[in-house]
């Protein structure tokens, strides 16, 4: 076998003769000279190295933060500030060396590296590559990489993941987002329907310890005294320091917990909580309350009208409801290891009528109205025996690629092209290798 750099004639130390660009940007400076550094193979190697470092630190960071947060700050970000302490973490876990290094260093985030790879690849094809049969595999492979990079970018922008939870025999007409909460103020005075006003968590967090949150739709103003990302509800230890003077907060208090981590196996979510102070529109104090994901709603009375307030997972209401007709939860005999679980559901849609029953189980999702419902969790209450099912509800980024009633994510196309490209290139190389040997 000859040495590889010779056989790969399209990339080598000599400038390639093919593909001359006729475009001229300015006298003396051709587009070619501008593109040349962008197209360089050295840059490719550097970008690969940068992506490796980013992914490595993005993995280490999951010891401290949830996957969602790490993805947001490392991979779906333009620039990331990586704490040096991640290095000391690594040394501590594997080498039992305990050193603390303060500070952070800036590093290109996933978007910069991704787009740089994208430009590098496009420029290389404009400049160096000539489409010949021999390079067909490489072309397909690189096209696949481009689709993959775009696909991941689109997923970052568009994909929405939510969950739907219900007990056997119950119905649900909304999904929840496990990583976002909202402060809900519910007016239950109308027997026909409830009126709900929502304060999203980013507004709560942004104004924590600062201004009053005020809105004409809200029956009262809200001030966030303290906000916690993750909490436990515990008995009040010291009544003097308790921030709440009304509602549940007079019986229990919040104990801050560390944020859930990407490296946890149990899939626990954060239980955010907050102490809020309320005043009516006239500026009269209504009291301070404790709200958290650990608690159900509690009443607040303004001007003789009672509202229910609660901090709950962010809801998205659907124009239909889904009824969990039957839940199956099997374990291996004599163990708690789950073997199989499935949910049989009925869809009640006022617009399109009823559908079902449909059985959803592992790797057999249900498709409805542009969303996909996957069997995700199943719990059986040890006391009552009531089964509670959790469905993962995903809105796919692009729905243009359909196979039957299945929606293929755009990543499939990229990966398919890359794999096929690799295969084609391998076959082409093999043929030329055999031809050379035959001579």
């Amino acid at each position: 076998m000859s040495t590889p750099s010779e056989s790969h004639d399209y990339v080598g130390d000599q400038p390639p003769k093919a593909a001359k660009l006729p475009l001229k940007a300015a006298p003396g400076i051709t587009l070619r000279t501008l593109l040349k550094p962008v197209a360089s193979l050295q840059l490719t190697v550097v970008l690969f190295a940068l992506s490796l470092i980013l992914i490595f630190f993005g993995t280490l960071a999951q010891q401290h933060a949830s996957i969602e947060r790490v993805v947001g700050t490392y991979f779906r970000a333009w620039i990331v500030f990586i704490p040096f302490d991640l290095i000391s973490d690594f040394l501590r876990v594997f080498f039992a060396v305990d050193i603390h290094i303060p500070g952070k260093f800036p590093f290109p985030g996933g978007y910069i590296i991704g787009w740089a790879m994208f430009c590098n690849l496009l420029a290389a094809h404009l400049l160096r590559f000539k489409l010949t049969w021999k390079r067909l595999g490489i072309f397909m492979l690189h096209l696949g990489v481009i689709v993959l990079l775009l696909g991941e970018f689109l997923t970052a922008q568009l994909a929405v993941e939510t969950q739907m939870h219900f007990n056997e025999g119950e119905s649900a007409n909304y999904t929840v987002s496990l990583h976002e909460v909202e402060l809900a103020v519910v007016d239950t005075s109308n027997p026909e329907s409830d009126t709900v006003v929502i304060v999203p968590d980013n507004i709560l967090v942004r104004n924590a310890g600062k201004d009053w949150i005020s809105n004409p739709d809200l029956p009262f103003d809200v001030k966030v005294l303290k906000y916690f990302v993750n909490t436990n509800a515990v008995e009040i230890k010291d009544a003097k320091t308790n921030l709440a003077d009304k509602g549940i907060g007079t019986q229990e208090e919040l104990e801050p917990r560390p944020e859930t981590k990407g490296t946890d196996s149990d899939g626990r979510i954060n239980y955010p909580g907050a102490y809020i102070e309320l005043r009516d529109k006239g500026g009269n104090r209504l009291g301070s309350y404790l709200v958290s994901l650990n608690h159900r709603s509690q009443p607040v009375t303004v001007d003789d009208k009672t509202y229910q307030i609660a901090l709950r997972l962010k809801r998205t209401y659907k124009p239909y409801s889904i009824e969990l007709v039957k839940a199956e939860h099997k374990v291996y005999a004599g163990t708690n290891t789950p073997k199989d679980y499935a949910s049989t559901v009925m869809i009640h849609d006022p617009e399109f009528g009823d559908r079902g029953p449909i059985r959803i189980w592992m790797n057999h999702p249900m498709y409805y109205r542009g969303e996909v419902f996957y069997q995700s969790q199943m719990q059986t209450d040890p006391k009552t025996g009531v089964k509670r099912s959790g469905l993962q509800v995903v809105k796919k980024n692009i729905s243009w690629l359909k196979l039957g009633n299945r929606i293929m994510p755009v990543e499939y196309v990229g990966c398919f092209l890359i794999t096929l490209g690799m295969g084609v290139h391998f076959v082409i190389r093999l043929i030329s290798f055999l031809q050379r040997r035959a001579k």
Partner: protein
Amino acid sequence: MNPLIRKLQVGLPFLIFGLSLLMLGGKFFFPKTQENGFDLASYGNIPVQQGGRIKPLDSLARSTLMVISGKTEVVEVVNNDRWGWLVGGTSEKKLASASAWLLDVWTRPDIAHKYRIFRIDHPEILALIGLPGRPGSYRYSIKELEEANALQKIMPIYQKAQEKEKESRDAFDNRLIELGRHFQIYQALMSREEPGFTPPADDIEGKWTSIEQAINQVIGPFRERFEQAIRERHLQTLLADEQKLKAEIDQVGQEVVMQRIRARIKIETDRQMISLGHQLLSGDSGEEDKLLSPLQKQLEEANPGIVFMAQKIEAAYAAQDAVKFNEAVSEYHAKYTSQLPTSTLGRTNLEARMNAFDPFLQCMALYLGVVLFSCFSWLFWSKSFRQTAFALACLTLVVHTGALVARMYIGNRPPVTNLYSSAIFIGWGALVLCLILEAIYKLGIGTFCAGIIGFLTLIVARYLAESGDTLEMLQAVLDTNFWLATHVTTVTMGYMATLVAGLISIVYIFAALFTNSMRGEQGKQVSGMIYGVICFATLLSFVGTVLGGVWADESWGRFWGWDPKENGAVLIVIWNALVLHARWAGLVKTRGMAFLAVFGNMITIWSWFGTNQLGIGLHAYGADTKLVRNCALSWGLHSVLLLLAFIPSRFWASLGPVKED
């Protein structure tokens, strides 16, 4: 050349191959079945159910003993004078095989409790219990632990450790919890809660009845009556000494006193129930007992197999009557085992046979031989030793493949289901890949690398087996044969190919640095080998990772989730792509590529084991402190290798100017 030596050279591969085959055949077809006249092999063949899986008793005994003591047999550490300097002054003497140990636990507890099987090596735990450190063994018997009052001393601290959040537990807490789990496992075995002996009539996959269950089915309804009687007796004694009772109430309060009384009644009832169970099971009620006799009849009618097990097999062993024992075991097989479906029996029989043969241990020896003969081939008798190594490697392939297929058949699973099986599979894949390379290049490097990777991965696997049953059942998310077969297998093969490229590179670095063998054609060939394997690794790891994405998308609608294990897999893909692009860009030549490939090994170890240690993502199937140390060690060794890159090429024997001497 002396014709005799030439004949020897030609015959050597055949000779070594034949001898090895003979030894393996002997081990496989004529396993040792009897111990002191007891046919323990046949006993160990009895199918039982534990952990949701049907397995031979021998497997249960081995995996339980492995978890508790880190060995598959009971050993005693003895001082060894003659060879002491070689093995650190001590060596191990086998006291009982796993099956014999299990029988002792069930029938001769006084002997079983003297076996030193509980491994406790954390100095703080030892200090807490008040046991002496026992370097070289660190194993303690139930008797020793009982005499030291271990349980009472551990309990309060154990409970505190359990209540702690996972992340705030330290090494001491974790080891204590582990020890607690070992006690529980032993307790479940002792109380006959595990394993199940007889399947439900209609569904073999359902929960099998254990001895404890069988007894409770019969005497359970009497519990309340027992408790009533004991309660009445207690109240009478309490009321008899009113003064004392009042004093106690004044001291600790009524609530606590009530709790104490309830606990005492429960303990006493439990004890009575157990004693009744024993009498029931042993069958010798003496004369006709009005209560016992009908119950015994009831037990025997409902669970004839279990009564037979206890009254015939175990009674014979307790009396150390080998003849009766062997008769009883074969009668049990004829009467009860034969009732099971043949497919189940085929699996348990094969598993028992595998336990006895221990194919991976044989493979380890074979791999060592392969490495040795490959090394010899570089010194003298080049062709002869190379062929010997190749022949031996082919034989290893047969054994390794056979064992792999047997595991797949027993578990009804694709080859890779957990960390243990990934190690075995990587060894196997490396062997296949290296044999192909050796068949093409004939340099002895292929067989050498096959031997090294095979041996090392099997050591890793042996160590990973300490966590218990290596054929354990899978979580529901993982329970998809199609994806296990495609994604997991391909990704594991990607790891394997990356490791092979790294190992060939290590061979290249040493050969090029210290010898001039890597000049000219040979160097080019090795370069081609490394390059080709990296291409292969890129393909496999990419396809494997993508399949993982497709699986995730099918299962929960997320093609890529950036979890630690996924990131580990994609690191390997990107690293291999980096090496290839660096090669094409002319940034590195063979030497540089070799160093990059060595770094690829470090990344592979990170992805394979390192990511699991960070805590656990969706994919992680185990975490361990010893693994951490070994990861660090392997990275250290590789780093030392990487330092060699800084030696200028003129000092490299194969790369510098040709010396004329």
